[in-house]
Structures are given as structure tokens and as C-alpha cells.
């Protein structure tokens, strides 16, 4: 995490302008980078890594979050607090990096997760993904399609959760969009989300729980 841990010691590399964020930027980051949000991001990275990547440990997920934070604080990735809140921005970064890592993992035997080097071809690929929105989706979409469908089958007895999944399938992203498209009240949304969280916690790559007995 410490920027001084990885000095730029390549004499060939032109010096990068120092990142000097405004006081407002620092205050916004300070206010939005709460422990609660860090835990949400860890859960997101962890569930992505487990469900799509097959990684059941927490180390990779924690590293994804920490590296994303470091890159923002170093100015490697530019977050604009006036355009977007920190949490969705970080979720996008984590999502695209996790996709990239999975793509690389599928190609090579070992994947090293480290702080990003902006001149690294892998980073340039990620940056292009961030810019175009491609994100290497082709590598993981079939698996995610299958898991989403299987998950829907698991909530056949829970219409609100089914409508939640259908709304997401039809492009709803935010809570208001899902509530509107699925015709869910706040309580119904929360209950469906909790039910789905329990099911997702049991998901492993390519497999969904065969019974609901494991749910609590």
C-alpha cells in the first residue's frame, strides 16, 4: 500500500507528473472510504473471485481492493468525485481487473497480482477496457450466464427474488431501477437481496447448491 514500497527505478521511464489532488478530492475520498464500504468492496471482490474465478480464499479479494485504492490514491486511476461516488467506481475497477486476471489465468498457469504498472501491457489492456467498456467480457460471460440462469432456478419459490434477477437481466443496475422494473417495495427488495446473498454465498464456479438446506 505504501507508495514508497515500489519506487520507479527504471531509468528509461520518463518521470510521471506527481498526483496532486485538490483538498475537495481528498475530503471526498476520506469521507467515502469508510470501513463499511471497504467491507462491501471486499465482499464484492471475494464473491466475484469465488463465483467466477474459483478462488475461495480472501487474499486475492483483499489485494484487489487494496491495489485499486492505492492506484486511485497515486493517481494511476483518476476518480472524479463530482462524476461518481467512490464505491461504484471501485466496484468497476475491481470487476474489470478481476475479469482481466481471470482471462490471464485462463491463458497462463500462474497469475501474479501486484500493484499496476501503467506501462505494463496488462495495464494498458485494462485501461483500454475501462475506456471502451469491453472488460474482457467474452472470457467469462458464458459462465456467468449459466450461473445466473441456475441461480434463477434456485429461487423458483420466491417470486420477488426471481423478479429481482429478471430486472437485473433486463439491464437494471441501480436499486431504484431494480425496484421499478421488478415492482418491488423497499422491504421486498431487501428481503430478496438477502435471500440471493445467501444463495450466492453457496455458489462455486459452475455449480449451484443442490438444496436450500444450507441456508440460514
Amino acid at each position, binding site marked *: 500500500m*505504501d507508495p514508497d514500497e515500489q519506487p520507479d527505478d527504471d531509468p528509461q521511464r520518463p518521470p510521471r507528473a506527481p498526483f496532486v489532488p485538490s483538498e475537495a478530492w481528498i475530503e471526498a475520498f476520506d469521507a467515502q472510504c469508510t470501513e463499511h464500504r471497504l467491507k462491501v468492496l471486499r465482499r464484492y471482490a471475494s464473491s466475484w473471485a469465488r463465483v467466477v474465478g474459483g478462488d475461495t480464499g480472501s487474499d486475492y479479494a483483499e489485494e484487489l481492493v487494496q491495489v485499486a485504492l492505492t492506484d486511485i490514491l497515486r493517481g494511476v486511476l483518476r476518480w472524479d468525485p463530482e462524476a461518481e461516488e467512490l464505491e461504484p467506481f471501485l466496484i468497476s475497477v475491481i470487476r474489470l481487473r478481476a475479469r482481466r486476471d481471470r482471462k490471464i489465468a485462463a491463458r497462463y498457469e500462474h497469475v501474479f497480482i501486484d500493484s499496476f504498472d501503467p506501462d505494463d501491457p496488462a495495464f494498458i489492456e485494462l485501461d483500454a477496457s*475501462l475506456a471502451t467498456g469491453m472488460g474482457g467480457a467474452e472470457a467469462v460471460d458464458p459462465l456467468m450466464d449459466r450461473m445466473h440462469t441456475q441461480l434463477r432456478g434456485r429461487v423458483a419459490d420466491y417470486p420477488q427474488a426471481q423478479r429481482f434477477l429478471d430486472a437485473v437481466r433486463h439491464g437494471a443496475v441501480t436499486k431504484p431501477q431494480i425496484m421499478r422494473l421488478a415492482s418491488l417495495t423497499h422491504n421486498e427488495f431487501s428481503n430478496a437481496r438477502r435471500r440471493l446473498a445467501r444463495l450466492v454465498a453457496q455458489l462455486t464456479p459452475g455449480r449451484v447448491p443442490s438444496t436450500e438446506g444450507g441456508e440460514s
Partner: protein
Amino acid sequence: MKRNGKRPSENADSPHPLETLLAHVSQESIDPLDDANASVWARGVRTKVDAQLAALRRQLNPARPLPRRAARISDELVSLGREDLLARLEILRKIPEVRIAHLELSGLTTDDLRQLVAEIEATERTQA
């Protein structure tokens, strides 16, 4: 997301529905043990973030030298009148290192003269 002036549109950067679902269910804490571990981890991360934010703040507001305080005027100088102060300045003016910017001292008030003598004597003491 913006880098080098590029920012994708919301439509272009659309997550897979399963990823959207994961983002929503991540708001739910359903495993108390994992939540406890996550709390410890989050506190550690936040501590490191605090250190990095402090560094950014220092970079934004580097420590500035404190403004120099005016020399203290001694009781002795307070007791001196204008003529005594001018005489004192004449003595100080003969010291090679002393340069007085004011060519015409008559334009200075008695308080100005007192402050001038105090400043010169304080500088002399510092350099001695």
C-alpha cells in the same frame, strides 16, 4: 472512469447481470465470522489510507516557515527619547555590517526609531 481524458459511457461499460447482482448482494453481511475478519481487515486498510491521505494533504499544504516576529523592545529602549534613539542609531550605523535602508530618519516616528534600533540590536545579537 477517466484516465487521460477518456471516460466510457455508462452504456458501454455495462456489467454482466451476475456482476450487478454480486454488487447488490455484497451490501449484505450474512456470515458473522467473515464479517468480523472483514472488520479487522477494513480497519487496517483504513489506517493505511489515512497515512496516504495525510501525505497528500502535506503535499498540498507544505509546511511554511513561520513569519518572523518583530524584535522585542526592551524596557531600556522604551525609556529612551527620540534624540537618544537617533544617537544610538548613529553608533549602530558605524558598525560595518549594519546597513540602514532609511536615508532620512526624520521621516520616522519615535516608535519607528525604537523598533529599528531593537531590530538592529537583535540581529547583532544573533550574529555575534
